[in-house]
């Protein structure tokens, strides 16, 4: 029971990492990134390449995250430029198509070049006993990192000047621009940050079980679902929605079975969207 809850929270936090990235890019750039899961896989592939060359797992993991972020910066400054020329729905549509194309390119390339790829990172100690329950250190560590990342993100958004400018752009891009904020520069930083979070989610998958190149679309879809259940514009919402859906999924797969569990997960997401169209925590950004 407690173990199932713990599993759910761990998986949920991983989903939250992906969803928060999608939320940030959507809030700031007005682009729904359909290649977000692919960034997670990309981070994992970069980590694996370093690992194979004999790098320390810790270093490899961090480099993987940085690599995902760098690729994010590159994409923002090149591929997404045509989309940024428009506003509102035009930008959304063009952004959807461009990122969908990007996800095909990444998937096609990775599946071709690394056809039998799988990243598995293992920790020195496999499991520990906490309050009488055996817990896997991998789960503990990934959730600890995820919680720390979220705390840092909230602190950053609340107390730093850059964080405040980011929130102002999410609220109203034109208004922020009139106050002298440069949305282009801020957007680039945020895309880098969001893709780094995706990279972290990919590495976490490698720690928790194993990461394959074919997992990109699955990550993207789950991340999108969670982001939308959270309200697409709220990071708190993404966090809560991720943990909520993670727990629903863990309990459903523990007590009912895998096919039905996924259906229950999707139906819960659908019901949440229909019951609270503006997200779980609509009022807070």
């Amino acid at each position, binding site marked *: 029971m407690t173990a199932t809850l713990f599993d759910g929270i761990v998986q949920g936090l991983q989903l939250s990492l992906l969803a928060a990235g999608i939320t940030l890019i959507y809030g700031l750039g007005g682009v*729904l990134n359909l290649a977000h899961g692919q960034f997670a896989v990309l981070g994992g592939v970069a980590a694996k390449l370093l690992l194979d060359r004999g790098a320390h797992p810790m270093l490899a993991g961090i480099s993987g995250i940085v690599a995902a972020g760098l690729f994010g910066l590159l994409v923002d400054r090149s*591929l997404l430029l*045509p989309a940024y020329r428009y506003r509102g*729905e035009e930008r*959304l*549509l*063009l952004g959807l*198509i*461009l990122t*969908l*194309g*990007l*996800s*095909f*390119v*990444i*998937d*096609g*390339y990775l*599946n*071709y070049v690394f*056809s039998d790829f799988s990243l598995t990172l293992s920790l020195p100690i496999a499991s520990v006993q906490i309050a009488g329950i055996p817990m896997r250190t991998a789960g503990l560590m990934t959730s600890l990192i995820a919680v720390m990342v979220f705390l840092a993100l909230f602190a950053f958004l609340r107390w730093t000047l850059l964080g405040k400018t980011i929130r102002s752009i999410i609220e109203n891009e034109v208004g922020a621009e009139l106050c002298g904020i440069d949305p282009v520069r801020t957007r680039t930083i945020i895309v880098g940050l969001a893709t780094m979070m995706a990279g972290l989610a990919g590495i976490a998958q490698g720690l928790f079980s194993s990461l394959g190149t074919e997992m990109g*679309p699955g990550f993207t*879809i789950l991340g*999108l*679902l969670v982001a*939308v259940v959270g309200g*697409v514009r709220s990071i708190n919402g993404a966090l809560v929605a991720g943990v909520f859906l993670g727990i629903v999924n863990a309990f459903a797969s523990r007590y009912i079975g895998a*096919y*039905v569990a*996924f*259906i229950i997960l*999707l*139906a819960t*997401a*659908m019901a949440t*969207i*229909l019951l609270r*169209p503006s997200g779980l925590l609509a009022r807070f950004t």
Partner: protein
Amino acid sequence: MSRWPIFSRYADLVLLAILLALVPAFAAGSPYYLRLATLAVVYMGWTVAFNLIFGHTKQLFLCVGALAGLAAYVTAVLSQQLQLSPWITIPIGVAAAAGLGALFSYVSVLRGLGVIFVGIVTLAFSLIFQNLVLGLRQFTNGETGLVTRGLGFALLEHPLAAYYLFIVALTLALVVYSFVMGSRMGFAFRALSDDELTAELSGIDVTVCKVIAAALGSAIIGMGGTLYGFYNGIISPGLFSFANVDIPVLISLLLGGMRTRLGPVIGAAVFAVIEEFVRPFGQLNVLVDGLLLIVLFIAFREGLVVNVRKALGRTAMLWPTWLPALAPDDMSNARPSGKMSPRAE
């Protein structure tokens, strides 16, 4: 306007049907190319329907494959389990798809969902459908697929006859589409795709319009799904997956041009040709697809039809006026202006 308004309004459709009917002559008896052409016609139908739902009424239905699959599975399972004739089961399958499409549309209008939210809800439905088909093994035979050979019309199992049947169905769908777009409903669609609030304020019932567009579009999608299921001889979840149906349909629509009559058809045809060209790349074809998608969109953002129109606009004098498909601003299927104003009642 030419002297034959009816002919003039449908001249491009007649031309299209003739062109498509001539394709088997060029396929030179190769069953492979005939099958490709048939698949292209099925996708054209789906894209026409998706244009009605997404292009004209801005409802991002990411469940084209699931609706088509639903109709196909309902039809096949009913035919198999109850030994009913396809004349009864096909309408039931189509009605199931249309009803579900209308329900999605009604609920999302009721809850005031934006484009993305409708997209995610319908995407979730697509995934639910896939898992249901896998889970309900005793009816659907799971991943292996359900054999539909012998359940449907014998005509659909003859490749050439099936191809012509699909052309008839596509032309029928296009005629229904043109009829709707030329009616008062069509004007309402144009108004609400420009600005929903203004349309609502000027007395258009946006809910009814959206639900009708969704129901009609879903019915066309379902029809395509059932016929395709019988034609294929076996239906499996993979046949109607998101990657296999929704993504090609979305790309075809955007490639050809949203809110145009022939855009979806041209887009689906171009997409089918592109797919055939990238097939030799083997596993890299996904990558080539992605690159093409990006390049085509940066180059022809408004779709091929609009770009061709613009190019022809410079040489307007050379273009026969009776061919309405390429006329500017898609007023091609509008009624003569006298009937535009509401009748005094």
